[in-house]
């Protein structure tokens, strides 16, 4: 039991790697706390500074100051080995990318405000890497990591959706003069093109910048080793990036007039920002990573940072902190800027949670899934395990392989092409709907997507059907097709039910329908679906011609034809010769077609005569039709799934069994089981009792031949003689078995006596 408990967070740490007790690390933690508080302060101040200083100038000053201080401390030129020319190029690249990232980050800061920037941008690499590994690989590391990732996503969504930042509405109507550089202008237009508010654009931008930052820092690790330490690289890189930014800054300051009244007043805040954001944070981070280990320092660091950010956000506009603020302007209306909203609070909580979960070290070796079996044979699972541990295959290769497989076979190819057509139509519709801002179109597009899921299911089933038999699927995967047909049938039932309910509620209270957009869309849908119907009805004739190989292929459905003929469709014999999967897909397409036809009819009726009632009546009618047309499919699929004797072979099988009894030497048979396994496998088992002097193999051969004529192509015959029962009664030790065996033996003897009389 101890082992079972060991995986919890608390004791797992004790049993796993040995961590240094907190007491010895207190000073580092305090140091981290102080640093993070200063950093938050610096970020808040830089937000205020960025209102007056241009962003490129700001970044340039930061880089330059940082470079000067680091040159003083690190002495990268005088110490260490010489930097080669090739390495200078690499450092240049590094510098360019790092300045781009800091530009993006600070631009996000101007958009989102300091608190949101802190929440979004200041995650350590450990957190982001484990987040990405949860999201994009199957082996994330247990449910807790998944939870952390979910929290992270929820937090971002909270910031995106539930954070009604009032200021942003104000910022959204920014005057054109606000864009004082090409860079910011390009970013603004990019965000405006996305069609979101600036604040949300900032959130997206910051998330992207975060990913970029993490990728960049992981990538530059190799370079830092090459150069000789991360600190040296940092010093050189900030110097180079300051040099890179220099021409831009000079051009900028030459062309635009600055908003800054006096640069001298800004020296102190700049020094403060450079010290807290660029230098101190870097050094303390590296010390703590060494002393506390990366996960722990990441966890503490992000928690401290977020908490101090929250505190500062609360008090930043408060008079108490006015002396802290370098940019105390009397007439500032900033009190409404980026206020704390409920959404931000919730997302901060989620961020703190997700950071602490994601940065905790993953415990390996807990992935055992099956621990054993209970006496009843019920498997006992380890609750921690993630059972699906597949060896990962590269995605493009997988897509390529499955595409090839899809296009090999006729059925799956048809479904695939139709799916593509349907999806194309859907996306055109959705796009047009978004463009024209028409809700009807968008919802119809989602409806089409919903329908596409049935097609996807059919496609998967058609693909799986051809897989080879395995140990678990000993008969092969042919049955998947029937199951998919069944699910599709259920799907149609659900659709019919919803349409029915909807139309009933509309019958009671017919709403006004805007028919302007409806007609062209439904005509388009009708055309697409008609194409599908043509394709699939062709498929069924194809299937029928091919189906002759599976022996006696009588029609599946008996009751269904009446219904399908009822609504006068020329494709109604679609049930014949097609497998259940294709029938399901076909019925789906048929239902969609009916829907389009119904919409067209009701549109005409409404626009011509103003009969609002026509719409619900049409949908009622359609729902009934769908329902009736699905019943035969469901019935057939159920019969197969329930292992009923295949109805089309029933008579043949009876005759065959009678014939079997007439075979020379056969006394009787018992337990005859015949069932359809899949479209072309009819399996059967039968036990035969034969006389003792008959050769078993001959009987087996004859029986197999007879039953093969009746359509059974996977047969197992157990041939029992009297000796078998004697052996069995000898072998079986239980009382009941002996009793049963002796009874059977008795009955056999009885026979023998009967024959003996003759």
């Amino acid at each position, binding site marked *: 039991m101890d082992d*079972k*408990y060991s995986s*919890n967070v*608390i004791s797992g740490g004790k049993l796993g790697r040995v961590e240094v007790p907190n007491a010895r690390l207190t000073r580092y933690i305090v140091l981290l706390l102080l640093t993070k508080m200063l950093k938050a302060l610096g970020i808040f101040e830089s937000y205020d500074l960025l209102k007056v200083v241009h962003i490129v100038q700001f970044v340039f000053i930061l880089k330059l100051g940082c470079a000067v201080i680091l040159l003083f401390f690190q002495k990268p030129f005088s110490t260490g080995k010489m930097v080669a020319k090739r390495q200078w190029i690499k450092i240049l690249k590094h510098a360019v990318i790092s300045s781009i990232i800091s530009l993006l980050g600070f631009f996000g800061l101007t958009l989102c405000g300091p608190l949101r920037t802190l929440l979004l941008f200041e995650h350590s690499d450990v957190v982001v890497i484990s987040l990405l590994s949860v999201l994009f690989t199957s082996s994330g590391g247990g449910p807790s990591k998944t*939870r952390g990732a979910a929290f992270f996503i929820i937090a971002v969504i909270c910031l995106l959706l*539930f954070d009604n930042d009032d200021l942003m509405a104000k910022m959204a109507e920014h005057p054109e003069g606000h864009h004082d550089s090409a860079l910011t202008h390009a970013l603004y237009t990019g965000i405006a093109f996305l069609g979101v508010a600036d604040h949300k654009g900032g959130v997206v931008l910051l998330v992207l910048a975060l990913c970029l930052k993490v990728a960049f820092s992981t990538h530059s690790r190799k370079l830092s080793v090459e150069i000789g330490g991360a600190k040296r690289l940092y010093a050189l890189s900030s110097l180079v990036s300051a040099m890179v930014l220099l021409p831009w800054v000079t051009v900028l300051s030459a062309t635009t007039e600055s908003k800054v009244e006096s640069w001298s007043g800004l020296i102190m805040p700049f020094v403060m920002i450079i010290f807290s954001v660029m230098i101190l944070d870097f050094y303390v981070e590296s010390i703590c990573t060494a002393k506390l280990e990366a996960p722990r320092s990441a966890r503490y660091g992000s928690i401290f940072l977020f908490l101090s950010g929250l505190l500062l956000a609360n008090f930043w506009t408060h008079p108490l902190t006015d002396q802290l603020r370098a940019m105390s302007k009397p007439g500032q209306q900033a009190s409404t800027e980026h206020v704390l909203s409920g959404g931000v609070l919730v997302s901060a909580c989620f961020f703190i949670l997700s950071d602490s979960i994601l940065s905790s070290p993953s415990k390996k070796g807990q992935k055992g*899934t*099956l621990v054993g*079996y209970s006496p009843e044979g*019920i498997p006992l699972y380890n*609750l*921690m*395990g993630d059972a699906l541990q597949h060896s990962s295959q590269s995605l493009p290769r997988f897509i390529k392989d499955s595409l090839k497989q899809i296009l090999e076979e006729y059925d799956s190819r048809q479904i695939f092409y139709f799916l593509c057509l349907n999806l194309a139509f859907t996306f055109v519709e959705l796009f047009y709907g978004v463009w024209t801002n028409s*809700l009807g179109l*968008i919802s119809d597009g*989602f*409806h089409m997507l*919903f329908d596409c899921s049935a097609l996807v299911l059919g496609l998967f089933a058609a693909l799986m059907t051809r897989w*080879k038999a*395995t*140990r*678990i*699927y*000993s*008969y092969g995967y042919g*049955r*998947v097709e029937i*199951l998919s047909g*069944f699910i599709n049938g259920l799907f149609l039932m*659900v659709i019919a039910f*919803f349409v029915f309910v909807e139309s009933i509620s509309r019958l009671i209270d017919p709403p006004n329908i805007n028919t302007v957009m409806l007609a062209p869309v439904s005509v388009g849908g009708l055309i697409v679906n008609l194409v599908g119907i043509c394709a699939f009805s062709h498929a069924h004739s194809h299937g029928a011609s091919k189906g002759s190989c599976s022996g006696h292929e009588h029609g599946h459905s008996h009751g269904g034809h009446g219904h399908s003929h009822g609504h006068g469709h020329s494709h109604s014999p679609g049930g014949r010769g097609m497998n259940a999967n294709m029938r399901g897909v076909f019925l789906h397409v048929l239902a969609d077609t009916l829907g389009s036809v119904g919409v067209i009819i009701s549109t005409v009726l409404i626009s011509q005569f103003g009969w609002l009632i026509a719409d619900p009546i049409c949908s009622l009618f359609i729902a009934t039709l769908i329902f009736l047309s699905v019943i035969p499919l469901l019935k057939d699929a159920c019969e197969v799934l*329930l*292992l009923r004797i295949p109805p089309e072979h029933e008579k043949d099988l*009876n005759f065959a069994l009678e014939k079997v*009894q007439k075979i020379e030497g056969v006394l009787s048979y018992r*337990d005859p*089981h015949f*069932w359809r*396994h899949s479209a072309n496998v009819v*399996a059967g*088992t039968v036990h035969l009792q034969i006389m003792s*002097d008959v*050769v078993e*193999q001959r009987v087996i051969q004859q029986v*197999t031949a007879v039953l093969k004529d009746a359509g059974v192509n996977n047969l*197992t015959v157990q*041939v*029992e003689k009297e*000796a*078998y029962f*004697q*052996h*069995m*009664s*000898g*072998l079986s*030790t239980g009382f009941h078995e002996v009793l049963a065996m002796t009874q059977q033996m008795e*009955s056999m003897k009885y*026979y023998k006596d009967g024959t003996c009389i*003759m």
Partner: protein
Amino acid sequence: MVAVDVINFQDSDTPLHRKKQETDTYVLWSGPPWTLTEQGTIHPFRKTHKSFLGKFVQEFNLVASDRRSWKILLFGVMNVICTACLLMWCNSTNSMALTAYTYLTIFDLFSLITCLMSSWVTMKKPSQLFSFGFERFEVLAVFASTVLVQLGALFILKESVERFVEQPEVHTGRLLVGTFVALFFNLLTLLSVKNKPFVYVSEAASTSWLQEHVADLSRSLCGIVPALSSFLLPRMNPFVLINLAGAFALGITYMLIEINNYNAVDTASAVAIALMTFGTMYPMSVYSGKVLLQTTPSHVIGQLDKLLREVSTLDGVLEVRNEHFWTVGFGSLAGSVHVRIRRDANEQMVLAHVTNRLHTLVSTLTVQIFKDDWTRPSLVSGVLPAATLSASDYGGASGFLPPASSKQAEELDPLTSTPTKPSSPPPEFAFNTPGKNIQPVVLPSTHQHRPYNLGGGLGVGAGLGMGARLPSVQGYRTSFSAAPHRYGSNLLPSQTSQYRP
């Protein structure tokens, strides 16, 4: 052919299907009306018409005659009323989350129907049409209800996506009332009705992600408060879990809408409930779907392999092939297997031994004995002399020796009494003894072919998903076909292929 007349006077109660005259078939096989509708030109129309509704009423009466099902019916009626109420409230509050939660109530209705069906199944005997019995109806009902709920959740997802585009106002008036009514009824139904099939499936299926997360959380909670371990650590009932989680989500929705008027929370929690529904139902539908697909349940593969290995070491057995094992209902295994034996082995003896071994696990078993080249007259269907059947052979199977000796005595008696026994084969089986000795040598080498000989458990666990397990099969096939390479010099390829399906 003369025997036909003689046998007809026997009583028709025995399970064996006797030889009978043509008229007799109608009497024996007339249980369900299919024979009459199919074969009979006698009642062409009336019977088909009546069969569906009339049969339904008849079966319903059969179920309703049992007093235990009254309770289920009562709960069903209550559930219908409750669902109708909830649907009305969903309409009036315009809340998607409550609708998603109501679908769980509808699912309870399905599970009650499944429960009724399972009590019906226990009353029915296997019929001619459904020769395996009616247990699969239960499985199908479980599968259908889980799939239906998932489709409902899919519908919710679709609607929610549409709502994200334009969020309508949600009225909170009946939201909390609806939540508590639904929660109360769901929990009442879950805890007071003993739902055998769903309990089984929820225990046997793999854990849902919801369960995993709750287990993970409660583990860390138990690390702090160990007293809770008896309550939190066992596997949670997934239905109770999803009901509680859904109610929790609805509570948060209510709070946020009341306080801040965040209407989008409703849609978000609808999505959350739909996802939880997916997570809870998916493992169950996979489990029941696998039963419906006639697959070998992965938890018995280890045991089956052990048995099949034992079978392949039996005296005279060359190869085990075409093995199909699958579950009929929840639990009972059925299967068929082809066993290829040596030409000189006794078929009935091998059959008895194979059946005896496998019968412990597989209740409905059919074994086809296959012999190469049986037309060659020399060694046809010989009984092995009693000496070659050493006592250890039996003792290994049944566990103790006395029955074996008694069995031999028993066996001798009919041997002498029946004149139809073939003459005993020549006692000098030169290659009989080597066969016994070599067999153990063959098998250890085959052990290494198997990927899952490490005690079954781990190998099986890895294959829990739907993924193809091709490599293991090949390992398996090669392991059993190792024997024929040794013995199969006289194997005719045409004949082997004939018996393959």
